[in-house]
């Protein structure tokens, strides 16, 4: 019963992700409350919370996308259960080690662990940095095996050209590549590239660690590598969510399935290049970086949004406009998520403009826009998938009055939580400050506003958690015979 096994492991992923999500939201609220001076934590506590929050959130929403894509891939190819399970075990192990690093070892470099900060006095235990690198290695290994295995399975069924939908570039394509396969393929290439960069970063860190001073890294090179990894993985996880939408939005709405056309193929293929070069926008304020790369950074950041905005968003709009579709909780979450994604993308494009970045870089504008397309974008894509996955039937997804109310609260909480960040960014409030200097007068008040709205957000997520986890446990405890169908 291959598909039952897949179903169970996916349910396991879902529960693990949601539990970690709730914990990480609480950490986020604590951070905001501390910045608001409502509570009073040691800076070290704040920064271990911040590091844990960032790493956990990135990790879980990445694997959420991977697990969803893996589950849906079974419609086209037979995927490896072993690779999936392997990734699950290594992810859990890696996350446990990360939490040990931050909470026992007081590791607090922020999730981007910029070189050489992990080697300097952090107020952390001496073993924290090597253990952190080991934890990253474990996560990287699990994810690399998983993504390579998925890609290999796709390439067993489709030729390389088909997997990238190149035949659609000709007038009369002989075969058809489903958009889901195309986007998954493009995304996996990016994921694998990011993970390889992570491996290089880890090796360079270890080399310096073990050389005891005879080998010293270059700070600019390390920054480029770290952001190539960090930006790319954070970006690709959104596309994993998007692939899911392409696959199930149509059928959920009682509409025909989306099909690849020549410019869908073109847009996503070119996106691959733009996504891999957009990370340069993290180095705009490093004036020693060659100017050519800075300009590539701005152009690539703009162009990377084209396949997503122009193709995905517009497709969703025309799929819905003037058409009576079945609105279930899943496609409502998808639809809301797309709005969050677009608005976060607008904030990102503004910040990716070098002449704006000079006043926005590392202010609260940064968490503002990435929380928009994560907390109100990608998270909703994944939650939508979780609902669909745990019921597998549209008729069970109809929206109750309570759910409608919850969605409205979700929107309000999102706007409040995010506006506090955006206004803070425009007010030049720096990101990553445990408390604000007195001169930054609006900082604490905005933080309080953010914290309270985030509590509302937490409540809604708790309700979703209850609904989804209940069904996940049913899947996990079901005997092999009854869930198979």
């Amino acid at each position: 019963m291959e598909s039952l096994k897949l179903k169970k492991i996916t349910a396991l992923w879902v529960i693990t992700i949601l539990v970690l999500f709730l914990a990480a939201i609480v950490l986020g609220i604590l951070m905001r409350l501390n910045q608001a001076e409502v509570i009073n934590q040691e800076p070290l506590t704040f920064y271990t919370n911040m590091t844990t929050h960032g790493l956990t959130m990135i990790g879980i929403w990445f694997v959420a996308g991977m697990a969803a894509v893996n589950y849906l891939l079974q419609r086209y190819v037979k995927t490896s259960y072993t690779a999936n399970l392997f990734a699950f075990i290594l992810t859990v192990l890696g996350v446990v080690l990360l939490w040990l690093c931050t909470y026992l070892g007081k590791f607090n470099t922020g999730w981007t662990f910029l070189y050489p900060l992990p080697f300097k006095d952090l107020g952390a235990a001496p073993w924290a940095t090597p253990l952190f690198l080991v934890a990253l290695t474990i996560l990287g290994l699990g994810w690399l095996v998983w993504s390579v295995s998925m890609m290999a399975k796709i390439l067993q069924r489709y030729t390389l050209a088909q997997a990238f939908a190149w035949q659609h570039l000709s007038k009369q394509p002989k075969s058809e590549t489903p958009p889901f396969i195309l986007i998954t393929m493009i995304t996996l290439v990016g994921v694998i590239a990011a993970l390889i960069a992570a491996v290089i970063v880890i090796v360079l860190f270890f080399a310096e660690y073990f050389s005891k001073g005879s080998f010293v890294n270059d700070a600019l090179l390390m920054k480029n590598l770290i952001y190539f990894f960090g930006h790319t993985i954070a970006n690709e996880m959104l596309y994993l969510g998007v692939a899911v939408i392409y696959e199930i939005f149509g059928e959920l709405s009682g509409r025909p399935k989306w099909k690849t056309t020549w410019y869908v193929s073109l847009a996503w293929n070119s996106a691959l290049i733009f996504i891999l070069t957009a990370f340069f926008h993290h180095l705009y304020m490093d004036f020693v970086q060659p100017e050519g790369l800075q300009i590539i950074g701005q152009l690539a950041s703009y162009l990377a949004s084209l396949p997503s905005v122009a193709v995905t968003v517009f497709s969703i709009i025309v799929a819905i406009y003037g058409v009576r579709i079945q609105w279930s909780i899943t496609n409502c979450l998808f639809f809301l998520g797309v709005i969050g994604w677009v608005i976060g993308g607008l904030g990102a494009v503004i910040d990716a403009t070098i002449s704006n970045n000079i006043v926005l870089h590392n202010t609260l504008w940064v968490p503002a826009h990435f929380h928009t397309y994560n907390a109100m974008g990608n998270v909703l894509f994944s939650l939508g998938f979780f609902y669909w996955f745990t019921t597998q039937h549209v008729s069970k997804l109809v929206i109750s009055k309570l759910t409608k109310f919850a969605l409205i609260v979700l929107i309000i909480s999102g706007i409040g939580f995010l506006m506090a960040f955006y206004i803070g960014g425009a007010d030049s409030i720096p990101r990553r400050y445990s408390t604000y200097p007195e001169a930054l007068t609006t900082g604490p008040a905005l933080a309080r506003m953010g914290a309270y709205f985030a509590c509302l957000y937490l409540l809604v997520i708790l309700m979703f958690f209850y609904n989804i986890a209940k069904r996940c446990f049913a899947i996990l405890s079901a005997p092999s015979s009854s869930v198979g169908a």
Partner: protein
Amino acid sequence: MKQDSILLFFCLLAITATIVFVWVFRSSIKAEERTPGIKNALQKRFWFLLILVVVFGIFASVTLPKSPYFAFAEEVPAKVIHVAALQFSFFLSEKSIDPKSPSGDNIELPLNKVVEFRVTSLDVNHGFAIYNPQMRIVTQTQAMPGYINRLRYKFTKPGIYHVLCLEYCGVGHPVMQTTFIVK
């Protein structure tokens, strides 16, 4: 301030996007039971792509020349200030700074003249962000170990300017700051 127009611009864009989405959503709710809709949602949207490329092209060609790398590039700075960042303080000096025993001076900068900051770090990455007397960022660069970033700026308003660290550098990050005077 530039930041206010950025926020306003963003809000306008976000509201426009929201209106479009709400309008689309309502049209779906109100639609007749049996409208066929289109067969493939991914069809014939090429012109939309093209318009976006053009819009982005215009946006890029307007904003790129305003990038800080090109600011005052042709001018000779009236004053050069050396900056060394170190967990968790800044040293500013008119003379170059000895990395072994860094020390700084009180800095006074001229009004309406180009000043160049040569910014580096003696330990980890830091930020060097200049806040005007109203506590808004006017310009910034990074302080990176092993590199010197040259930041040019012309101050047009007198007063006390703050420098804040804008790159996370350890637990003392939020208290890492200094000031200088422009008159």
